[in-house]
């Protein structure tokens, strides 16, 4: 508890929270939004392609866009950690925050499971297991976005974001 307060009251956290600069809180939250667009956007295109949308797009080609997705993921891991540090005590007391983390963990595990079943020799259509994983991937990201957005409305962190 004391540890969380110390992080929250550190000079950096105070700057992010209170500085009258667009690079502080607004900029970090903006990067978090753009990172979300990269991760979920590429992931959604990939999952929908597995489900049969845009059938002439070769699945293997979409693997070339995975670095964009992982860039978004690391942007959000870093900005997310900063946003947590700034409001450590409120967020760690908000059950919704843990729901969001669980959804993200499930979504990331899901990407690896789906990749293994889809990037197989050409010409083999995605298995039904792959399609189920594509659906769960969309559900997990939808869950992460929803619980993330609701952090501003429910529990002790409401009014922060």
């Amino acid at each position, binding site marked *: 508890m004391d540890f969380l307060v110390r992080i929250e009251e550190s000079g950096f956290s105070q700057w992010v929270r209170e500085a009258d600069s667009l690079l502080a809180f607004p900029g970090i939250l903006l990067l978090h939004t*753009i990172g*979300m667009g990269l991760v979920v*956007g590429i992931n959604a295109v990939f999952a929908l392609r597995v489900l049969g949308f845009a059938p002439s797009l070769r699945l293997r080609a979409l693997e070339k*866009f995975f670095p964009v997705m992982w860039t978004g993921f690391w942007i959000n891991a870093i900005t997310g950690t900063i946003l947590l540090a700034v409001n450590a005590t409120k967020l760690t007391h908000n059950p919704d925050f843990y729901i969001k983390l669980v959804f993200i963990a499930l979504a990331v595990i899901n990407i690896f499971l789906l990749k293994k079943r889809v990037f197989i020799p050409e010409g083999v259509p995605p298995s039904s297991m792959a399609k189920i994983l594509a659906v769960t991937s969309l559900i997990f990201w939808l869950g992460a*976005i929803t619980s993330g957005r609701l952090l501003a409305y429910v529990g002790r962190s409401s009014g922060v974001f």
Partner: protein
Amino acid sequence: MNPAHMHLLLNHVPTIGFAIGLVIFVAALLLKRSHLRRAGLVIFFLAAAITITTYVSGNDAREALKESPDISDPLMQAHESAALVAFAFMQITGFFSWVGLWIWNRPSRFGRWNMGLVFAFAAVTFVLMARAGYMGGAIRHPETGSAETIPIDPSAPTLARSWGMFTQDYSWVWPACETLHFVGLCLLLGVVLVVNLRLLGVGKTLLPVATLSQLLPLGMLGFGLNMVTGMMFFVATPEQYTGSFFFFKMVLIVVGALNLLCVMLGKTLEIMEDGPAGIWTRFLAATSIVIWMAVVFCGHMLPWLGNSF
């Protein structure tokens, strides 16, 4: 020059600009000229895009005038609600026109059906837009005598105000729309990135450009989701979305629509196979990514650089 000033410039696009499109489209159907028909679709799509800026700038005009003693606020509110209905039909017309352009080179029964849909929605849009324009003109032009012809009941909430009350009465509506606005953002950005990064060369040995066209409806779905949820915010609390910064976001969306039109009409997505794209195509691809990122930036920065919340 402020958005209220822009409203005066832009308010002829949804009426007169759209009417030109309608005349061309009907002439094309009667004379069976396919190029003319395509031109009609392009005008409808552009008119729908520009109408976004017309609609939102009207809000600035009302904010500036609502305290004026010689201006009737109930009349402005009636104009707002008439414009809202016309706006909805305009966007539907624009959407089906876009679908018509998207399936242009693939003749199908649906394509013919779609032309009928475009015509039906365009005809209704024109009537509704003319009505909205008539009411708008009545606000500042007593010489026409049209203000007296418009029945107004100031005690009854207008359509736009009832919409606003709906979002206030049900506290879940706003966060739900925000969440969907994020979902739409992800879909749009995902498609924008895959299509344009491919045009810039990513995955060019594996991904023929011709297949990219299949992704566009997904991006359109994302955009549509954000247009609907964005309008939920805008119509409910119009006073939050005045000023140049929000207007700039809407202008960027129109530029994004123009960019898409250039890519689709330039046959970029049809003739180019593997290999590097031309300099014009790469320019369009790079600007598309910049435009949509800038749209996200403007939306996100509204509380800090605009005047929301």
